[in-house]
C-alpha cells in the first residue's frame, strides 16, 4: 500500500513538474496594442515568428488598437489568465496609459521583453519651403501655431518628441492627432499637415522616394540614409534640445508579471534566441532598428524609467489627466 502511495505521489510530482516544464502546450496569442503595419506591429510579427520556432508552438499576432496609449489591448491581456498564453505587444508609448486615464494600472504589472527601436526624425512635406530645421523653427516662431504638425496619436512617443522639439526650440506647432504613424505620414504627404515626427524605420521608404523631406534626427547623432544623404542631428542646431531629448523607442512584448517563474524563464530564453536569430538581425539592419534584447529586472527598470519620464513630462505639459503622483509614479 505504501509503495502504491509513493508511486502515486511520485507520479503526481512528476506530472506537475512536467506540467510547468511543458509550457507552452498550445498556441500563444500576442495582442499588439497598435494597428497593423506600424513599427510595433511589424517588430512583434517578426520576433513572434522566431519566438514560435524557439517555443515549438504558433505565436498568433492579433491587433487590438484603440483606447488611450494602447489601454484597450493592455486591459484585454491583463484580464486574461497569467499563464503566458496571452502576451501583449507594446511599445514605450503604452507607459502613458495610466496618467492619460486609459486604465488605473502601472507598467509594473508587466514582465517586458524589449526588442528595441528606431530613432525619431522630424520631416516635412516634399513641397514645403523648409530645407533645414532652423528654417522651419524660425517660420514657426514668426507665426506661432500656424504650421500644422502630426506625430501619431496624442501621448505617443512621437508626440512627446514633437513636444520636446517645441520646448527645446521655442517653436509652436499646431498638433493634429492621427490614429498612428502611417496615417500621420500620409497626412504630411497629402499636405494636410506640414511637419511629421515619426521614426526612421517608418519614414525611410517615403524619404528615399522623395515623398517627405527629412530635416533632422532627434537623437545625439545624425544618420546617413542611402539615396538621401546625411540627416543632421537636431542637437547641432539647437543644443538646448539635449535637456529634453532623446526619448528612445522601446518596442517589445510582455507577459503578466504574476505569471509563474518557469513560464517567464522559458519566454525569456526563447525571446533571446529569437533576437539572436539571423532573420531578426537582418530585418533590424535593413529597417534601421537598434536591437535591445533586455528582459527581466533590466527591462522592468527601463519601462519604469520611461513611465516616470513620460508621466511627469505629460503632467508638466498639462497633458496628463491623472497626476502621476496619484498612481505612485516616481519623479524622474
Amino acid at each position, binding site marked *: 500500500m505504501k509503495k502504491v502511495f509513493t508511486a502515486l505521489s511520485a507520479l503526481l510530482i512528476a506530472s506537475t513538474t512536467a506540467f510547468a516544464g511543458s509550457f507552452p502546450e498550445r498556441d500563444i496569442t500576442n495582442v499588439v496594442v497598435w494597428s497593423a503595419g506600424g513599427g510595433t506591429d*511589424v517588430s512583434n510579427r517578426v520576433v513572434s515568428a522566431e519566438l514560435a520556432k524557439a517555443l515549438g508552438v*504558433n505565436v498568433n*499576432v492579433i491587433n*487590438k488598437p484603440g483606447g488611450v496609449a494602447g489601454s484597450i489591448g493592455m*486591459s484585454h491581456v491583463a484580464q486574461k489568465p497569467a499563464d503566458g498564453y496571452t502576451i501583449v505587444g507594446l511599445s514605450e508609448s503604452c507607459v502613458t496609459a495610466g496618467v492619460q486615464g486609459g486604465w488605473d494600472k502601472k507598467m509594473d504589472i508587466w514582465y517586458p521583453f524589449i526588442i528595441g527601436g528606431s530613432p525619431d526624425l522630424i520631416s516635412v512635406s516634399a513641397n514645403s519651403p523648409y530645407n533645414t530645421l532652423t528654417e522651419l523653427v524660425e517660420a514657426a516662431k514668426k507665426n506661432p501655431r500656424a504650421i500644422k504638425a502630426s506625430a501619431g496619436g496624442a501621448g505617443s512617443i512621437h508626440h512627446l518628441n514633437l513636444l520636446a522639439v517645441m520646448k527645446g526650440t521655442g517653436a509652436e506647432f499646431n498638433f*493634429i492627432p*492621427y490614429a498612428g504613424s502611417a496615417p500621420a505620414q*500620409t497626412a504630411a504627404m497629402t499636405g494636410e499637415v506640414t511637419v511629421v515626427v515619426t521614426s526612421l524605420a517608418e519614414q525611410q*521608404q517615403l524619404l528615399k*522616394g522623395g515623398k517627405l523631406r527629412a530635416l533632422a534626427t532627434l537623437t545625439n547623432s545624425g544618420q546617413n540614409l542611402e539615396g538621401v544623404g546625411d540627416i543632421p542631428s537636431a542637437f547641432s542646431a539647437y543644443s538646448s534640445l539635449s535637456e529634453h531629448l532623446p526619448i528612445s523607442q522601446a518596442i517589445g512584448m510582455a507577459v503578466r508579471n504574476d505569471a509563474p517563474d518557469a513560464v517567464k524563464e522559458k519566454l525569456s530564453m526563447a525571446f533571446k534566441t529569437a533576437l539572436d536569430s539571423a532573420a531578426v538581425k537582418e530585418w533590424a539592419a535593413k529597417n534601421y532598428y537598434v536591437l535591445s534584447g533586455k528582459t527581466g529586472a533590466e527591462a522592468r527598470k527601463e519601462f519604469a524609467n520611461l513611465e516616470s519620464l513620460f508621466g511627469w513630462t505629460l503632467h508638466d505639459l498639462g497633458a496628463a489627466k491623472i497626476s502621476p503622483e496619484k498612481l505612485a509614479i516616481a519623479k524622474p
Partner: protein
Amino acid sequence: MDLFNDFGIFFSTLFSLMSSPSNILLLFGCSFLGIIFGALPGLTATLGVALLTTLTYGMGVNTALIALLGMYVGAIYGGSYPAILINIPGTAAAAATAMDGYPLALKGEGGRALGLTTTASFIGTVIGMIALVMAAPLITGIALQFTSYEFFLLAIFGIVISGTLTSKDLVYKGWIAGLLGLLLACIGRDRLQFFPRFTFDMPELDGGIEVVPVLIGAFGIPQIIKVLRDRIKLSQPKDFGRILPEFSTVLHNMKHIFRSAMIGIGIGTVPGVGEDIAGWVSYGTAKNTSKNPENFGKGEPAGIVSSETANNACIGGALIPLLTLGIPGSPPAAMLLGALMLHGVTPGPMIGLENPSFFIEICAILLLASLAMWINGIFLARQVVKLLQIPTAVFLPIVGVLCVIGSYALGLNIFNLYLMVPIGIVAYFLTEMKYPIAPLVIGVILGPMADENLRRALMVSDGSFMPFFERPVAILLILVIVLTVLTRLPIYQRLKSSIWTRISSKQGQQSEK
C-alpha cells in the same frame, strides 16, 4: 519594350509558381479556406489574412502571397453565399449582394445567383489586377487627394447611399437606420482626445462597439426569427440545377460589370475604405442607371453582378496605394502590409527600384488567386445550395449557433454576445417596422471614420467649414450626397413630374399648332 519585358516576367512567374504542386495545393487550399471564412458570419477577410500571416513566415515571399491573396480573394467572394442563400451576409462587403441575391434564392434560383456571383467576382478581381499593373502610378494620385475632409464626406456618402438603396418603404427610414448606426458608433472613447462617450463606466465599452457582433446580430437574428416564424421554405428542391456561369447573362451585363469594376478599383484606392462601400456604391449606381430600377431588390441579376464585381475589383484597387505608397487601401490590405513587412518587403515608392519585378509578380499571383476562387466557387456553389434541402427547422438553429460562435470568436470576448443579442432583438423590431438593417451596420462601420475625420478636419482648419467647399474632391462628394438626398425627397419627385407635365403639355400645344 518595357511592356514586353513585363509580360515575360508575368508569365514566367505564373509558370514557375504553378510548376510546383505544393504551390497549387496551397493556392486552392487557402482559396477554399478563404471562401469558408467569408461564408461564416463573424469570420472576415481581415481576420483570415491576419491569422494566416504568421503561418506563412517560414515560406518564401511569393509562396506566402499565394496563400494570403488566395485567402483575401476567397473571403471577399465567400461572403456572398449566406447573403444569397439565407439573407445573412457573411461579411459586410456582401451586404449589397443580399438585396437581390436572396429574392432570387426565394424564387428557387439560388444556384443561378451563386453562379453569377462567382463569375462576376472572378471578372472583378481580374479587372482590378489589370488596373494594378497598367494604371498604378496614375491611380496613386487619387489616394493622396483624400484628406480628413474627403474621408468624412465619403463616410457620410456611404451611409446615405446604403440608406437610400435599402429602404423598401419610406426613404427616411433608411437614413434613420443609418443615423442609429452612427449613434452606436459614437459609443466608446473618442479617438482624438480620449473622452469617454456613452460608456457608463463600463471598460468593455471603452474601445467602442465592435462591428462583427453588430453585423451578425443585426442581420442574423431577425432573419432567423422571421424564417422560423413564417415557415418560409428556403428552396424548391427542383430548381437549383443551373450553377454553371451563364455566359449569356454575364455578357448581357457587361456594362454593369465594367462600370462596377471601375467603381471598385476607385474606392479600393482610397486609404482605409474597402470592399463594403464598394459593393453599395456600385449597386446604387447600377440601380440609378438601370432602365428598370423597380426590379432592383426583387431579384435583379444586374444587382448581384454589380456588387460582387465591385467588391472583388476593390482588392486590386486596395493593393495600389499599398504597393506604391505603403498605405493600405482596405482593412484586409492593412493585414497584407504587415505580412509583406514580415517577409522583409517594405512597400512604398522605392519598391519599383528595390524589387523591380515585385509588382508584376503580385499581379500574377492575384490572377492565380482569382482563378482558384473561380474554380473552387463553381464546385462549391453546387454543394452549398444543397444545404437548403436541410429542413429549415434544423438548418436555422445551426445558423443561430454559428452566429453566436462567430460573434464570440472575435477576440474570444463574451461581451460581444451581450452586444449581439440585444442588437439582434432591436433589429428584429426595426425590420418589422420596415426599417432596413444594412444602413445601421454601415453606420457602425463608417461612424468612427466620419466622427474622427470631421473633428480632425475642423482642428486643421481652426473650426472653419470653408475647406469643404474649396477642395475639388470634397465639392464633388458634397454634390453627390446632396443629389442623392434631394432626388429621393417627395418634393423633388413632385417638382419633376410637374415640370414633365408642363414640358409635355407645351410640346403638345406646339404640335397642335
